[in-house]
């Protein structure tokens, strides 16, 4: 069973992130919040696809539900002030 810590590491290994938080303790349902400059110039679908690509096959087999919130550093700054 996967832990949110493992998910966090998988994402971090596959995608350079400024901020990365992963919650979820039932092994199946997770929530990830990712801020990365790799998202700049990409629409929401493309941003999420980058996270899914970092997770690779685990996303298809072991992770049933992963809610994603993705931001560019600029969008994250705007949300926060």
């Amino acid at each position, binding site marked *: 069973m996967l832990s949110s810590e493992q998910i966090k590491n998988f994402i971090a290994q596959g995608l350079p992130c400024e901020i990365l938080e992963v919650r979820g303790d039932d092994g199946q349902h997770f929530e990830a919040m990712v801020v990365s400059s790799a998202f700049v110039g990409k629409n929401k*679908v493309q941003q*999420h*696809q980058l996270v899914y690509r970092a997770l690779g096959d685990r*996303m298809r087999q072991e992770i049933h*539900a*992963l*809610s*994603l919130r993705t931001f560019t550093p600029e969008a994250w700054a705007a949300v926060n002030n």
Partner: protein
Amino acid sequence: MDVQEKIRTQVTANPVVLYMKGTPQFPQCGFSGMAVQILKACGAEYVAVDVLTDPEIREGIKIYANWPTIPQLYINGEFVGGADIMRELYESNELQEMLA
């Protein structure tokens, strides 16, 4: 007709298509249920495809959109997103405009 062709036909022949688990009346997954609620709140007309009744479509759609999960919303043949993105677009009123 292979499954990718079948999907391409479905999403281009109908302006709004939701691939989901279950039906709008009986969604079989929380995320699919959320997608149905969002479309209902938009008052949108759409074609729902229950991927649980067709394993080929269930896997084929993930390849088609390069997106590993269900539900998936298509508007005018274009993949719009899953439940998260639908909610974000709904909250920013973009989804309502796309469906108008």
